[in-house]
């Protein structure tokens, strides 16, 4: 059975003054799919993600969220966060930051239970009370993932989240994302330069090159395609 589409890009393009970033991008992403977004630095991967996150307006074409914009809840996991190592912000506190709204300053019992559930799901139980600034790179990435998950997204964007991790930690994190994808039917966009990881963990690829965008099942992403013109 084919899952319903949740995101459709029609002739999408973004141009900064005198600098076309990408144009004529057509893409349909369905619930539960795992996409890798690849391409070398400067081709517009981050610009595309910022457009999906409503931070940039496309200069051509459109993004359609299906069935409606409110039905697509996006969780975003970046590579870095600028958090002072000395802040007394525990991983538990950090995850709870994403629970906003016009509410009382402190979390309700229901919200605390929600944070605890995510902590358990992401394997952060033993680290929950450690200041996030003192956590290792892998632990921080797990905390960023947990923060993104606390609002129950159905589309998760991993924006080079594994770039600075060692191979074991990288595998651990992507195993966790795969498990979430299978259990929650979570759609995942994995922005990466790591082709072996993309081949192992994603279903489809979108390769962005200057002036050209290519997509297809990940099995069709061959060595020749990647290295032709040094595309990653």
């Amino acid at each position, binding site marked *: 059975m084919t899952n319903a589409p949740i995101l459709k890009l029609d002739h999408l393009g973004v141009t900064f003054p005198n600098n076309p970033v990408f144009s004529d991008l057509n893409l349909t992403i369905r619930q539960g799919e795992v996409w890798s977004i690849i391409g070398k630095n400067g081709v517009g991967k981050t610009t595309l993600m910022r457009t999906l*996150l409503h931070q940039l307006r496309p200069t051509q074409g459109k993004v359609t969220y299906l069935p409606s914009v409110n039905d697509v809840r996006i969780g975003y996991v970046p590579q*870095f966060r600028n958090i002072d190592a000395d802040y007394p912000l525990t991983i538990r506190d950090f995850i709870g930051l994403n629970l906003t709204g016009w509410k009382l300053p402190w979390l309700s019992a229901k919200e605390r239970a929600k944070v605890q559930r995510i902590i358990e799901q992401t394997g952060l139980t033993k680290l929950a009370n450690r*200041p996030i600034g003192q956590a290792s790179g892998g632990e921080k990435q797990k905390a960023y993932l947990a923060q993104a998950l606390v609002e129950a997204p159905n589309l998760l964007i991993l924006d080079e989240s594994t770039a600075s991790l060692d191979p074991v930690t990288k595998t651990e994190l992507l195993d966790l994302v795969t498990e979430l994808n299978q259990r929650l039917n979570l759609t995942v966009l994995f922005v990466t330069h790591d082709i072996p990881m993309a081949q192992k963990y994603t279903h489809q690829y979108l390769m962005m090159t200057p002036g050209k965008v290519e997509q297809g099942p990940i099995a069709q992403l061959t060595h020749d395609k990647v290295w032709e013109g040094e595309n990653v």
Partner: protein
Amino acid sequence: MFSYEFMRNAFAAGTIIAVICGIMGVFVIARNMSFLTHTLSEIGFSGAAFGVFAGWAPLNGMLLFTVVSSVIVGQLSARSERREAATSAISALFIGMGILFLSLANKNASYATSILFGSVIGISVSDVRQMLWLSLVVLLVVFVLYRFLKFDSFDHTGARVKGLWTNALSITFLVLVALSVSVAAQIVGSLLIFILLTLPAATAKYFAHTVGGMMVLAIALALIGVWSGLTLSYLTNYPVSFFIAAIEAIFYFVALGWQRLQTAE
């Protein structure tokens, strides 16, 4: 000491200031805005001088200048790479204006000194009442916006991705700092306000385990500094701002030493 009305007023005002500065200071430190706070205090001096020139109460001049300028500073320093330079330019301009207004008002250096360094003797009951109302406004806004402010201050990237209106939050926060500066200037003076808005929170971050804990500890440290400063000033007749500055700085250096020991272990 408490048989004098001015000392009772000073302690009441000092307590209000310590609470406000302890709470706001946590956000000032998390947002790396110590320098900007210093600039707002200089603008406060200029505003007070303008108030004197215009025949108003200095607090009203301060409120006008700090609130208006906090919006301008917020806009000009929205991009972090030009924040330092923009803040320095505004700071220089306002100090110059402050001196000009004092000169136009035909006030002498001792008047400037009392604006810059504060005065315990001049605090009346109506001043305390006015400070209390302003502080309640600040506390109410912080209470309502607490989750947004906390998210944006401690994880700006996350707040932006979430779609929070971070620019509006930043300007709102600066206006709150402007109000706090105007309140706190009554005792410690405009030049030393940033001490209470930065050092207690900067010290507290080394000892607290949660943001809430940091806030409570910052309030406690500010209270110790203000109460001890007022007492020592009463006993020795030296300026209260010197004692407050010295006590808070000692706390901060002890915290730095403690942190170093912890890291070395």
